């Protein structure tokens, strides 16, 4: 047993445990040191603020939903939705955890030659994954349960049942995703096709998100009553009835969350038993297959792809400009890494897909009312996006900053180079060109997102094309400025000493700083928007002001990079 925990502890430490990564810094000699108490306090305060905000937003959402469900008398139906939704939510994260810890972990080759039993490796991975799953649960599920408790006023047994629920919950999606991943891993060579495996698992996670989003948004019901409680109750009943095929399972934990007698506790113990049974099943199956998936696959050889190098080369050498080659290499670095695809490219793409699904789901569920809703929205948008209204450009500027903060492509561009990032300093290419190449991908991706949003608003509201073009130009320049700001943060203090690509983005504080900077600029633009409401300036003036500010910022940034020269990469040693 002790060995099992030793293995788990080692795996956890090696995976870069979140607590030490938040309190460790690097000194000038690049040695890892414990942060000074003041620095540690400020980092912890910041983390506390972010976690607190997440917790609070989940709590307020839960409070509103459970409050309404209570008033509308549909608490049971609400719980029938709540249970599969939290399972799906945790399942989305456990997919990533299982993929990276059980199958793609770089330390597997360290443990395989050691005299450790397969189940000890399995348990080690399970404990590390569970710790992470519990952390996610703490900010996503616990606040919802707190909100539920505030609404229903539970007795001691219900709280005890909830503790059992929280403890047992992650093991169900963990076991199921492990078994699914194991099955996929048995079909093809995981060791050799790590990227393909990762992409398949990421796609399953995205499918989870879409199912969740579409399922929840398409359950609006047609109603003629103006009573919002009745509408809400109908909507909840509709969703619950769609999920009735899960009733055989959801009824068990639901009883534990509602029944104030020992029957509720017995039900919750049954839920725990299901969780334990799934873990046991995973252990039994892992004994036979898990290690084979990791080891045996190495033996299956594959032929090296024969290709015409001359042809490949001549097509490759068509692009000779250093800038274009830098951009191309940057792009290839991202799209050839499932980790980067999932962490850098997916967030903005998912926003578009989820928003589209959600809108489509809501409008199609509303039937003819959907067309009416659009007809009502259009004049409002026309009013806001017109030459008479100057504040919209400032608010759009704030929105652009929010869009820019959605991806960490620019805020980790230098960090992603890793330990050999210093090589970029040996290239005879001016730092300005290198910086421009580094921010191109981040800017382009967010520009696509902005463009899609812009076109959608333009079509719905049938906006003036000249207005759209005039407002798009300053916003694009603002996007470049935002990406420059994030890139400069990363260039000043890049996180280069990472073990794997996941750590390069997820343990990189620059991503957080970049996001906060964008939000900060966004708040300034929001403030200017409110001021312009009072000043009553028209859109031409606001275009000019925003364009002038964006161009001035851009020139200032490029000017200081030129002035600094190679010192702009001072953080890379």
């Amino acid at each position, binding site marked *: 047993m002790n060995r099992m925990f030793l293995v788990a502890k080692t795996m956890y430490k090696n995976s870069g445990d979140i607590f030490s990564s938040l309190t460790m810094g690097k000194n000038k000699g690049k040695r890892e040191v414990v942060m000074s108490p003041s620095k540690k306090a400020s980092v912890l305060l910041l983390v506390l603020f972010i976690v607190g905000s997440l917790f609070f937003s989940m709590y307020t959402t839960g409070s509103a939903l459970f409050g309404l469900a209570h008033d509308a008398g549909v608490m049971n139906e609400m719980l029938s939705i709540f249970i599969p939704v939290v399972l799906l939510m945790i399942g989305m994260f456990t997919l990533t955890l299982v993929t990276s810890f059980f199958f793609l972990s770089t330390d597997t080759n360290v443990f395989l030659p050691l005299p450790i039993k397969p189940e000890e490796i399995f348990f080690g991975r399970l404990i590390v994954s569970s710790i992470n799953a519990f952390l996610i649960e703490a900010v996503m599920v616990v606040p919802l349960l707190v909100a539920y408790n505030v609404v229903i006023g539970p007795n001691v047994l219900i709280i005890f049942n909830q503790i059992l629920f929280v403890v047992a919950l992650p093991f169900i999606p963990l076991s199921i995703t492990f078994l699914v991943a194991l099955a996929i891993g048995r079909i093809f060579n995981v060791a050799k096709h790590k990227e393909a495996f990762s992409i398949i698992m990421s796609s399953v996670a995205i499918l989870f998100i879409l199912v969740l989003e579409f399922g929840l948004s398409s359950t609006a019901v047609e109603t003629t009553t103006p009573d919002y409680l009745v509408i809400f109750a109908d909507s909840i009943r509709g969703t619950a009835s769609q999920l009735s095929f899960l009733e055989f399972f959801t009824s068990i934990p639901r009883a534990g969350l509602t029944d104030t007698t020992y029957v509720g506790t017995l039900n919750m113990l049954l839920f725990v038993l299901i969780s334990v049974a799934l873990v046991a099943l995973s252990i039994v199956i892992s004994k036979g297959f898990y290690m084979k998936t990791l080891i045996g696959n190495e033996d299956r050889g594959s032929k090296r792809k024969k290709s015409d*190098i001359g042809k490949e080369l*001549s097509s490759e050498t068509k692009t000779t400009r250093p800038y274009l080659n830098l951009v*191309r*290499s940057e792009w290839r670095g991202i799209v050839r890494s499932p980790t980067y695809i999932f962490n850098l490219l997916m967030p903005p793409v998912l926003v578009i897909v989820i928003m589209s699904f959600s809108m489509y789901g809501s409008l199609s569920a509303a039937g003819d009312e959907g067309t009416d809703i659009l007809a009502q929205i259009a004049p409002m948008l026309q009013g806001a996006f017109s030459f008479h209204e100057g504040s919209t450009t400032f608010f759009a500027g704030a929105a652009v900053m929010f869009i820019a903060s959605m991806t960490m492509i620019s805020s980790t561009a230098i960090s992603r180079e890793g330990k050999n990032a210093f090589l970029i300093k040996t290239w005879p290419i*001016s730092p300005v060109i290198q910086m421009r190449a580094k921010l191109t991908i981040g800017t382009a991706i967010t520009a696509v997102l902005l463009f899609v949003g812009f076109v959608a608003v333009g079509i719905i509201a049938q906006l003036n094309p000249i207005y759209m073009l005039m407002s798009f130009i300053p916003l694009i320049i603002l996007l470049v400025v935002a990406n420059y700001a994030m890139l400069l943060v990363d260039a000043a203090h890049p996180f280069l000493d990472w073990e794997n690509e996941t750590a390069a983005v997820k343990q990189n504080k620059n991503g957080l700083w970049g996001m906060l900077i964008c939000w900060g600029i966004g708040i300034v633009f929001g403030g200017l928007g409110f001021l312009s409401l009072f000043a009553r300036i028209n859109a031409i003036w606001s275009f000019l002001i925003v364009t002038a500010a964006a161009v001035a910022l851009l020139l200032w940034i490029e000017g200081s990079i030129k002035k600094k020269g190679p010192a702009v990469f001072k953080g890379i040693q």
Partner: protein
Amino acid sequence: MIQINGVTKNYGKEFKAVDNITLEIKDGEIFGFLGPNGAGKTTTLKMITGVTTLTAGDILINGKSIKTDDLGAKREFGFVPDSPDVLLRLKGYEYLNFIASIYGVPTEKRTAKIHELAERFEMLEALNDRLQNYSHGMRQKILIIGVLLHDPAVWILDEPLTGLDPKSSFTLKEMMREHARNGKTVFFSTHVLEVAEKLCDRIAIINHGKIIFVGTMDELKKHSEGNQSLESLFLELTDHE
């Protein structure tokens, strides 16, 4: 030619990683740079290649200062780092084309040159694979090909023979000799004294950030007492400093 003039590198107020070193590596010379771990070898290489700034002094590569004309100086050399884990997501030929573009190798020349060098290092078959699938030695070779591709006057190599198979190691050594015979410069760091003995025209030994010896192997041997081996001589020099 590399001229290192009174170069110092301080980390913080206290620690001098490199302390006022002066060296001149001439054209047509293979120059070995030796020293124990933490002696200042890597810091010196980083200063020569523009990775780290200089606290004092200057470094000229073919007359171009790394301080005042860094891009000009960088066009004069090709650098192979000790760890070859670079741009691992790129395929071999993509990496080489990328480097060729960075150093402005003409299109018509680069395809033929890539072919020639890849064949010489037995890497032609592997050019269509990603660098992440290469062994350490193969990554080392692709980096070396990248340097040879733009044919710089000065080669700066950090532990270039580590991980190379005997044939590639022999090929590289031959190319280093050929490069020097053509009147160009090779500056490389190594831990292997035998390599330095067989390959270098001159060597420098650095310890605690100071140059403690510059000269030919024969001159180094003159320091020895009787039949002392090169290894014990090196240990004696570096320990006694």
